[in-house]
């Protein structure tokens, strides 16, 4: 299907189903049940899942295939956001030109930064990318204020020129982003009994873009180019003596992953038309590294899983405060209740980073292949139990 083999088609189909049904899947708990706070099916968060999924898919093309670890990819995401907001300010509120410009500008940025950084390998490469990203952050935060609006961030105003559109709507407010008229913030609520599901136009636009990005990534993984990138990670010396020049291949991978980051940044701005320097900070660059490794670097689906897991924890775990905890454990005698809340307290709410850190450590130590490897091990366990035949245990390489 679509030039993919059977296994990859199945994977694509599963991902497509999951993303299309996400509003149901992420909202399993009735709206006013105690577990409703674990519902992640609201548009804002689901958009973040898929947007960061795109970011991580792209990052994985560089890091997962070539092994070059960039600590500066947030810079491309930030550049993408700024480009998109400028497009909204100057041209039109349609998201298509905005996103196209994000991808192009981020690609050009990546070309320059990649060209310089790829003169070194290993830790020196990582440090160079980090330095460039921090420079971009500093530029955006203070030096280039006319372009980026500094600390406040770049926003839409009522007197933006907007050549192909109006500066303000009839009732005097700022127009909203749209896809040929379909407003990104428009949503439809479906209520079934105690459940409620939200279908947002913005989410579906992001989800479809994510599916296309995912499909493209599969094609790259299976192409001769993808194979060269894995060969670069494996043995550059052999590649040289086989008549291939690793430099341009690596640079191409760097630019492609930068364009993915730009696409993610553009989509972010398309969902919520503002851009701030903090999107380029080194913590944001580190986050995509965590996502990729947590999910499984070099695997197809891993980065998407990693992005989902981290964004879920960031948004759901961080909302569990002491009051919520007391509510859960109210059935226990007071002393024990307080003790348990005291123990759990550091791991939730503002302390969700601690939980993430522990999970990350456990995964890296026991599942070097990330969540994907975990899934494969479980699948293998079931296979073995079912057939009790050693041959049926799949030894196929990672997905």
């Amino acid at each position, binding site marked *: 299907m679509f*030039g*993919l*083999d059977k296994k990859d088609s199945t994977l694509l189909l599963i991902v497509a189903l999951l993303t299309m049904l996400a509003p149901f899947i992420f909202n399993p708990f009735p709206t006013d049940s105690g577990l409703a706070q674990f519902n992640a099916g609201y548009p804002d968060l689901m958009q973040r899942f898929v947007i960061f999924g795109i970011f991580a898919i792209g990052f994985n093309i560089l890091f997962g295939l070539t092994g070059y670890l960039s600590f500066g990819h947030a810079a491309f995401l930030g550049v993408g956001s700024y480009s998109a907001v400028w497009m909204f300010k100057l041209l039109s509120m349609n998201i298509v030109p905005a996103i196209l410009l994000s991808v192009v500008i981020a690609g050009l940025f990546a070309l320059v930064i990649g060209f310089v950084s790829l003169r070194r390998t290993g830790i020196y490469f990582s440090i160079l990318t980090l330095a460039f990203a921090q420079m971009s952050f500093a530029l955006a935060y203070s030096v280039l204020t006319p372009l980026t609006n500094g600390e406040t961030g770049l926003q839409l105003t009522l007197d933006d020129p907007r050549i192909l559109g109006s500066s303000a709507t009839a009732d005097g407010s700022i127009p909203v982003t749209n896809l040929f008229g379909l407003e990104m913030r428009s949503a439809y609520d479906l209520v079934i009994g105690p459940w409620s599901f939200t279908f947002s136009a913005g989410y579906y636009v992001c989800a479809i873009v994510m599916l296309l990005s995912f499909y493209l990534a599969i*094609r*790259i993984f*299976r*192409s*001769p*180019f*993808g*194979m*060269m990138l*894995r*060969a670069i*990670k*494996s*043995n550059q*010396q*052999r*590649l*040289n*003596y*086989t*008549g*291939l*020049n690793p430099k*341009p*291949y690596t640079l*191409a991978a760097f630019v*492609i992953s930068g364009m993915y980051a730009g696409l993610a940044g553009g989509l972010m701005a398309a969902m919520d038309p503002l851009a701030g320097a903090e999107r380029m900070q080194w913590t944001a660059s580190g986050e995509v590294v965590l996502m990729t490794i947590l999910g499984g670097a070099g695997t197809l689906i891993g980065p998407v899983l990693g992005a989902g897991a981290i964004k879920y924890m960031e948004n759901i775990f961080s909302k569990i405060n002491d009051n919520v905890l007391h509510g859960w454990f109210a059935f226990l005698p007071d002393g024990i209740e307080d003790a348990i809340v005291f123990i759990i307290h550091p791991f939730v709410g503002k302390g969700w980073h601690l939980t993430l850190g522990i999970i990350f450590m456990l995964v890296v130590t026991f599942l070097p292949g990330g969540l994907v490897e975990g899934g494969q091990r479980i699948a293998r366990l079931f296979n073995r139990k079912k057939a009790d035949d050693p041959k049926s245990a799949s030894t196929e*390489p990672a997905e």
Partner: protein
Amino acid sequence: MGILEVKDVGKRFGGLKALSDVNLSVAENTCHAIIGPNGAGKSTLLNCLVGKLIPDTGSVMFQGQSVLGRSPHEINQMGISRVFQTPEIFGDLTVFENMMIPLFAKRDGAYRLHAIESVMNEKSLIEEAEKMLEEVNMLDKRHMHSASMSRGDKRRLEMAMCLVQSPKLLLLDEPTAGMARADTNNTIDLLKQIKDERDITIAIIEHDMHVVFSLADRITVLAQGTPLVEDAPENIKGHPKVQEAYLGEAH
């Protein structure tokens, strides 16, 4: 004029004269062996031919063109392939993938971006890869993760990766080192067959005299960075200077 002409090549590592006044002419479609005691400079000489090292003095011409100053991938594209003393393969890739990369390099040159079409659609290249694997008796291992193979298998794979590019000049650095006797004999047979069937020139560094005398048309003896003698195999065997070089090493 040989296909490969090495003139007055010298190379120093700090105070150590690894090579000095090396002159060597390898005739087309012959097998030229370079032998010599450990540390004689054999690998260094090979490194000067493929762009890994640049000699301090002298010139290296391949088919009338200088290779000096060119990078390894350019030299490979001129038609020189090299097998390393310790096998260099793509350990993270499967045996089959290891074979495809040199085929792409040969067909598409040093850099060409094929990012969309699947590798599996390259029918004619796949056929070539499989034919070569068949020739080295590795077809049954095609899906194996290449890092997990024995050293002898890695060697054979590396050799197959070089041969599949149909190079004009094949450079082998101790291709049978670490191989079992049977594997060594298979390698000799394979190289003989390659030599008979193809237009290929082979330069081989080897310690195993059995291999050298079964394959070589010419032998150069290198000692302390300079060629001692160059002659046909039958004249090398009893050559007093050669005996001296090897015996000298033993003391």
